């Protein structure tokens, strides 16, 4: 992340010329400070358009009281940090000003310099963190813009885009289905970061990643003493996601008993912590995802029908990569460029043969697998072009999915024999036995370099 260097604009508001000179001197000890000096409150207020980040304000000014100037500054921009300098050691005055939004109250004594410099350092550190958070948030929102985060112009994806456009305009519950690796979480995040909740939290909970006995307290939180080990109370994900988006991934894995509590929370828009007695309202947009066919789960009694309909909302079905045609190449190019950029590599491209190899593969692991294949190929290639030999398919599902790749009958035979040779460590006797073919067939294929390469 690059930050443009900008000096810190600091106002010194002080009517006593000696003290004014001293504070200016202290502030200018840091060459990054651009200091403007004002003798009264009115001139300070008139110059707020210069956008000071810090104001050192004398409490006793000739025209307006420090308290009044503080109020005006905060009305203009609440993010300006105001440090009050005063010869008054009255605690109640100090507390009053701090309540009004002053960052610190420093008495004019022999310790002023150290205290002032410490406070300025704190303010700058706080401001820098705050800028970083804003910048990261902006970066996140940009990276999840619909046209940047979701790649593809296949017909199947055009349908998805049309639904996404609708999803971001309202708070409707969205249910995303699709095979593993099709990008369900990316879709959920894109909806969140393009909706009017984008400045609030996006909380993702994977139902299959949390032990069943802990899921309820993770989702709803718990009160102190609710169970052994609950030494303090804790907020659940429903509460944390308030005003934002709660993404419930692998919803089909949720225990049926917990489903009823989730259903109640969604119906009432309020929930109860484990061990709690007070309902807590929440306002989170719900997005659920599953790779399972929930309707089938309903018919098998594994999923509540009422919850199914409550969650259905706007259904978005993500197509598997193998049904997305040329999107494979668009995605491959996207991942290739991103990997090259993130690793400061020289520009690398895919050869025609490599593209062809990709287009003829079924990608059982979908986008996730394609990304891994491209990243590995980028590392393996020795030149500036990825060849077919750099494209390696290592999916554990490939044996089960080989039929999804369109091949000739001869190529299917080669694939099968290769698979068995790999499985049985090139034991030709065993492979011939398992496939019920003659060993000579395998030897002939080996001789012609059709298998074992």
């Amino acid at each position, binding site marked *: 992340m690059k930050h443009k260097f900008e000096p810190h604009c600091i106002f010194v508001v002080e*009517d*006593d*010329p*000696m*003290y004014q*000179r*001293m504070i200016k*001197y*202290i502030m200018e000890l840091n060459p990054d400070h651009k200091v403007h000096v004002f003798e009264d409150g009115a001139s300070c207020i008139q110059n707020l358009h210069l956008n000071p980040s810090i104001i050192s304000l004398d409490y*006793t000014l000739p025209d307006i009281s420090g308290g009044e100037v503080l109020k005006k500054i905060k009305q203009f921009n609440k993010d300006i940090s105001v440090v009050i300098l005063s*010869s008054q050691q009255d605690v109640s005055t100090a507390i009053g000003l701090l309540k009004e939004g002053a960052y610190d109250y420093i008495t*004019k*004594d*022999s310790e002023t*310099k150290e205290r002032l410099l410490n406070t300025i350092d704190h303010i700058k550190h706080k401001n820098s963190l705050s800028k970083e958070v804003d910048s990261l948030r902006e970066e996140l929102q940009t990276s999840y813009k619909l046209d940047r985060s979701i790649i593809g112009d296949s017909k199947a994806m055009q349908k998805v885009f049309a639904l996404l456009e609708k999803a971001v305009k309202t708070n409707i519950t969205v249910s995303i289905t699709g095979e593993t690796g099709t990008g369900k979480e990316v879709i959920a995040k894109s909806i969140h970061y393009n909706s009017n909740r984008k400045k609030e939290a996006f909380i993702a909970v994977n139902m299959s990643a949390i032990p069943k006995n802990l899921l309820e307290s993770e989702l709803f939180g718990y009160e102190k003493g609710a169970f052994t080990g609950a030494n303090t109370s804790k907020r659940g994900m429903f509460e944390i996601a308030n005003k934002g988006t709660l993404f419930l991934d692998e919803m089909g894995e949720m225990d049926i008993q917990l489903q009823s509590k989730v259903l109640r929370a969604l119906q009432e828009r309020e929930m109860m912590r484990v061990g709690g007695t007070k309902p807590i309202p929440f306002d989170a947009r719900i997005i659920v995802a599953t790779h399972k066919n929930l309707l089938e789960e309903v018919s098998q009694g594994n999923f509540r029908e009422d919850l199914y309909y409550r969650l259905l909302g706007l259904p978005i079905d993500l197509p598997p990569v193998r049904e997305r045609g040329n999107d494979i190449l668009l995605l491959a190019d996207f991942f290739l460029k991103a990997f090259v950029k993130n690793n400061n590599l020289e520009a690398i491209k895919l050869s025609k043969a490599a593209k062809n190899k990709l287009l003829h593969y079924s990608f059982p692991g979908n986008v996730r697998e394609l990304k891994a294949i491209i990243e590995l190929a980028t590392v393996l290639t020795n030149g500036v072009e990825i060849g077919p030999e750099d494209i390696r398919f290592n999916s554990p599902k490939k044996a089960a999915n080989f039929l999804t790749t369109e091949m000739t009958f001869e190529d299917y035979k080669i694939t099968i024999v290769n698979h068995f040779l790999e499985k049985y460590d090139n034991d030709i006797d065993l492979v011939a036995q398992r496939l019920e073919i003659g060993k000579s067939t395998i030897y002939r294929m080996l001789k012609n370099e059709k298998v074992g390469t």
Partner: protein
Amino acid sequence: MKKLNKDTRTGVLPRVPQPVATQLTDVPVSFDLSYLEKISRNNLKFIKEIISIFLNEIPMAMEKISRELEDRNWAQVANLAHRVKTNYMMLGMTPQEQNALSIERMIKEERFTPTIIITNVNQLIKDSSQLYPILEQELERRNQLS
């Protein structure tokens, strides 16, 4: 209930400091620049600048306080005392800083008699006047250093 006499009262009630008039003295006044030297890491230019500002500002402030005193404008006397006290602090003039603080507090807390204030303000004016030539010498000395 036992009636509290003057002596027992001070024992049970919060003790309020009684206003004290500074006796006009001729004790030589002095200054200590160690505070300015410390904050500026001995920056000669800065220290000279501060002394110059003091020599410009304090005589004017003393004239003003004197006028306000003549007019018995106590609130303005307190404000001026409040303002100059940090100037004395910066030049390490602790007795004058304390005197200015005492003038400010007595007036703000309405625990004063005109005589006390007049005496204390006059002492402040006298001390400041005594200091000007000494500070001018110091400024000259530092000018020669640079």
